[in-house]
């Protein structure tokens, strides 16, 4: 049985002009240890899928209209909010699209990292928590630990912030890591570093990865399976090797052709 299984998921936003169907009956399975890529143009609903898996739709004023999201045997959407607290950050984690705004501006970075440990390991002592935080920072190749620990986020570069967010996401060694365009807003060299880092962590920790991107090259190069989204629907889902060599869907064909004629970092 798959580690994560999304069945017939629909998500809607209420906008001033009416309802936006951001996700419209999406289903896919992610096997343990796999790298699963979700690709699609901007606005196709990729982040909304991730948002639903993380049960964050409320914050954006979105509603899950229908569907089931199974993590092993549990339907995440049927759990009470309090029960989900034991899963997120411990079994399933996420790195968000834009590192700039995802750290709290008025709390020291070190405290935010330690908090991620503490919430799932309330019995650890202060020094043990600190140790784990330090080793997570090491894993994401951040040196200058002491300074970063005592900084506020506005003092850090985009790449440093993304590494910190990555460190927080993997600090409890989750089974599933969702990385939503983990490289947008970063320059090309840092993009590559972050991607390599995520792959490396996957190797070390046996993570199951869901990578969301609009960069087809990334999906082709790094993923085992790819789902292509368009206007809230998955129009093709297949092993990455096949889908990029001979796509069945006409739209996917166009997409792959365009992508090969564009440089890698174009959105």
């Amino acid at each position, binding site marked *: 049985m798959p580690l994560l299984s999304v069945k017939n998921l629909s998500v809607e936003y209420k906008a001033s002009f009416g309802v936006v169907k951001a996700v419209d009956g999406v289903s896919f399975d992610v096997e343990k240890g796999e790298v699963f890529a979700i690709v699609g143009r901007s606005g196709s609903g990729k982040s909304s899928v991730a948002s639903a898996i993380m049960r964050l739709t409320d914050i954006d004023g979105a509603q899950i209209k229908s569907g089931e999201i199974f993590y092993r045997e549990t339907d995440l959407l049927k759990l009470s909010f309090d029960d989900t607290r034991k899963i997120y950050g411990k079994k399933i984690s996420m790195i*968000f699209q834009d590192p700039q*705004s995802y750290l709290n501006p008025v709390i020291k970075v070190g405290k935010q990292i330690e908090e991620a440990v503490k919430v799932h390991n309330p019995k650890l002592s202060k020094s043990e928590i600190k140790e784990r935080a330090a080793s997570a920072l090491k894993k994401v190749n951040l040196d200058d630990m002491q300074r970063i620990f005592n900084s506020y986020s506005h003092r850090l570069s985009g790449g440093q912030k993304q590494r910190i967010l990555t460190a927080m996401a993997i600090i409890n060694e989750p089974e599933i890591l969702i990385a939503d365009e983990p490289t947008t807003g970063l320059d090309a060299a840092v993009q590559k570093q972050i991607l390599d880092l995520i792959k490396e962590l996957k190797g070390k920790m046996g993570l199951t990865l869901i990578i969301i991107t609009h960069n087809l090259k990334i999906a082709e190069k790094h993923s085992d399976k790819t789902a292509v989204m368009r206007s809230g629907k998955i129009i093709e889902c297949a092993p990455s090797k096949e889908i990029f060599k001979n796509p069945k869907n006409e739209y996917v064909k166009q997409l792959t052709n365009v992508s090969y004629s564009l440089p890698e970092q174009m959105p």
Partner: protein
Amino acid sequence: MFTYIFKRLIYSIPIILGITVMTFAVMFFTPGNPADMVADFNIKVSAESKERLIKLYGLDKAWYEQYWNWLKRVVVLDFGNSFRDGKPASKKIAERLPATILLNVLSIILMLCISIPVGVYSAVKKYSLFDRVLTAIVFTCFSVPVFWAALMLMTVFGLWLGWLPISGLTSFEFGEFSFFEKILDLCRHLILPVFVSTLGSFAVMSRYVRSGMLDVLKQDYIKTAYSKGLSKRQVVFNHALKNALLPLITIIGLSIPGLIGGSFIIETIFSYPGMGRLGYEAIMARDYPVIMGIGVISAFLTLLGNIIADVLYASADPRIRYK
């Protein structure tokens, strides 16, 4: 930081000057002058002695000349003597200022103690019954005129029920009370004025807190916090609250002129021995030195409040640094 504060103080001098010019001009061009006030209510005062009064106060000179004379004395901290009883204006104000500060500090504290929990709770439970009831209460508080609320409360709690005194800051027998009786007596006198002056600002402030909180709860870092597995409580108190409360520092700083203005009304209604009532009486009597003195003090307190608010804000928000 001290150079920053020093600079701000220097910059406020022209502002205070501007305020005094305007106060003086408004006061001067308001019909009636101090000599009328003394002469008209007393038939025994002859036209000649009225002339003498006018000469004595220098009221026959042009307004800018009078202002200039006033300013020359103020530079050496001489605010002149009250036209009414000849006492130094600065002394009269200094006697009254502590009571006004006490009233306003208490009502700010009370206001924060109520409006922060109320605002946070109605943001977290948006559109719940609690939120709706509170919204109704808040808008009622906001639209009730202060003087009406004051009179109603005085009638109910002071006259009908007889629980609370309705005027002054101390009882007649205050001098004979023991220490604790004195404190109790002060508190009883303060309840109604503090409550009334809190009413309006509570309404505004709890709305600020609510909308600030709602705004913060939509921020990206809140998603990070939830995705780490934090509970609602932890997210609200550890991540959202500080961000939502930061702007309050500025708002409180900006509310000082309103508080001083409100003191004129509230202190007069409650016969409260503060600067506001002194100011009201001085205006009625066209007691120029006292009016100007209160104008200067109010302007100074307002600017000082803003400087303090800015310094506090900068020390509370890591993103802001002094320039």
